[in-house]
């Protein structure tokens, strides 16, 4: 169901994101260039230059300043947008935590890219995963369409007074960022009905002065941090609620925090995030055709982590193959670790096989996915930990 005035175009996910920033009626864009994010901000700068987008493009000298400036824009009561990748996200790290702790309802698009060293401009999810504990809501998207739709939803989620946390919308380098696909671009009026103007809780208001983003000792600090945790937990419900409303208005339904694909009666399930789930769906179909009981769980929200949902689906399978395009060096992939923690206490937990692959843009072709699922099918419940790098 397309809305009446929407248009369909072959565009990259980066252009889809730029369109979303425009449709979100962002006031100020502050960003610093880095491959493969650049075409997002180039497009936005062009929309502004051509008068298609009513916003100001703020020049900054680094990602640290880009995110800080966005916080400043929010403090003044306006809506901001920024985008980055890899080293840029790493360079923002201090301010990422600052923004979340200060409850700044920001939206950032991260075009996920590997992190140096070794130097690489190609894609994996190490950059985003390394920001896991900064307090941002992190949502991984699969397509250009989902990226566009999630940016619009991200503003609703972040600015919801029950949440007031920053949202990082993640998309995969090149597979999404530089690949054209058919994307439906909603019309402004419909977006306006979905995403109202920013209604801030507190600003730097000269008529009603507040000290904001202050310091706190002991019990005050603990109190605010508990509130932050509560907000992050509430965000899970808000993500679902906003997704449902988005589906009703725009006709594209995102199934909340995770998306299960053919998990009913599955013995082995692949858990993955991002663009790789597109291929995985085809692999599941092929293997199902061969009579193999396999399924896919696309984890959309990495933070807040959908513990209950994952517990429910994982408790029904014999084994889980977890594909991580990242690694917590010295342990294992982050999704595998978090999934295991979510399953703690199950009387008969599934075997969890962790595969690390798709690093620095390496393809994860259907054969590799089949290999992972076959290995999971052959595993017994409660088998010893399995960690395998699959790119070589």
């Amino acid at each position: 169901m397309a809305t009446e005035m929407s248009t369909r175009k072959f565009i990259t996910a980066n252009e889809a994101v730029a369109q979303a920033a425009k449709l979100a009626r962002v006031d100020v864009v502050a960003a610093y260039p880095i491959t493969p994010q650049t075409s997002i901000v180039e497009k936005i700068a062009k929309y502004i230059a051509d008068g298609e987008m009513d916003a100001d493009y703020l020049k900054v000298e680094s990602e640290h300043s880009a995110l800080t400036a966005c916080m400043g824009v929010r403090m003044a009561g306006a809506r901001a947008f920024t985008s980055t990748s890899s080293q840029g996200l790493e360079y923002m790290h201090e301010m990422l935590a600052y923004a979340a702790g200060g409850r700044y309802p920001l939206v950032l698009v991260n075009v996920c890219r590997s992190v140096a060293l070794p130097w690489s401009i190609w894609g994996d999810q190490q950059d985003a995963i390394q920001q896991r504990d900064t307090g941002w809501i992190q949502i991984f998207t699969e397509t250009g369409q989902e990226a566009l739709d999630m940016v619009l939803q991200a503003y609703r989620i972040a600015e919801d007074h029950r949440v007031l946390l920053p949202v990082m919308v993640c998309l995969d380098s090149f597979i999404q960022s530089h690949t054209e696909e058919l994307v439906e671009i909603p019309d402004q009026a419909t977006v306006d009905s979905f995403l109202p103007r920013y209604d801030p809780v507190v600003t730097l208001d000269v008529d009603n002065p507040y000290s904001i983003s202050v310091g706190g000792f002991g019990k005050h600090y603990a109190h605010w941090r508990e509130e932050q945790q509560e907000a992050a937990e509430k965000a899970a419900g808000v993500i679902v609620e906003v997704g449902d409303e988005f589906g009703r208005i725009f006709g594209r339904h995102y199934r909340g925090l995770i998306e299960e694909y053919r998990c009913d009666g599955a013995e082995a399930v692949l858990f993955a995030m991002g663009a790789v789930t597109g291929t995985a769906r085809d692999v599941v179909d092929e293997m199902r055709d061969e009579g193999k009981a396999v399924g896919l769980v696309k984890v959309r929200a990495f933070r807040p982590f959908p513990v209950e949902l994952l517990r429910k689906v994982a408790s029904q399978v014999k084994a889980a193959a977890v594909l991580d395009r990242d690694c917590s060096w010295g342990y294992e992939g982050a999704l595998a670790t978090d999934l295991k923690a979510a399953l703690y206490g199950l009387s008969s937990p599934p075997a969890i096989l962790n595969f690390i692959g798709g690093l620095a843009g390496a393809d994860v072709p259907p054969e590799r996915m089949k290999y992972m699922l076959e290995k999971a099918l052959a595993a017994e419940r409660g088998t010893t930990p399995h960690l395998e790098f699959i790119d070589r």
Partner: protein
Amino acid sequence: MKLKDIEKEEFYRASYGCAGCAAVLAVRLTIKVLGKNSVYVVPANCISTVSCYYPQAPFFVPFTVMAFAATASACSGISAGFKRRGREDIHVVGFSGDGGTADIGIQALSGAIDCGNKFIYICYDNEAYMNTGIQRSGLTPYGATTTTTPSPCFENRPKKDMLRIVAAHDIPYAATACSSYPLDYMEKVKKASQVNGPTYIHILTPCPTGWGFPPDETIEIGRMAVESGVWKLTEFENGEFRTTYTPKRSRPVSEYLAAQARFRHLSPEQVAAIQKEIDAARD
């Protein structure tokens, strides 16, 4: 500006600042000039340390604590946000220390000046990282001991010249000031507030705790700095530097140095060398 014109109302009070703190004085004077229609960004420094801890609230104007390196970029963003909301009349003020300006914050400051949004950046310079316990910064002067340049060693490089650094950005307005000359400072704040673009004021604020002098001598030490030629009161406007105050008397630098514990180790030869440098700069 005349003394009788100074705003009576206090917008900054009940901080935990040390006795004789000139940085606290600089904040008070700044808000007296700009009034209620101003907002303040303060990064990690003495002022935030003595002002920001909930439920304490010494600022009677909107105030936010910012990350160390982020003062100027926050100012730039706030200014951009106010512009979008049609509130360009509000003064956005950054209040950062010497390390927050000349060291960790210099990149963001350079970027924000280059960006060109309207804000007033005030560097209060007490010549070391004071709230963390007197560690040297890029603005610690030659010859000073700090806890990271302890005796028998001492800071072996001159202060960075921040005024020339910001002037090199073709900033619309910049100035130096000293807390011992409040009218000169306040006039500069007033002037900065009337500029539609980035402005920079660098105010020397003597620190009894870090420099080692009695708290009741803060004003006198600042005067000695200016009268000895260690610090100059100048302005940069329309591409030119101008002296705004020439001291009526000239004092030897030895008096200024002898009054502070941080310079006590200097030999007569070293003091003479410092005097020679000042004399050379004067000519």
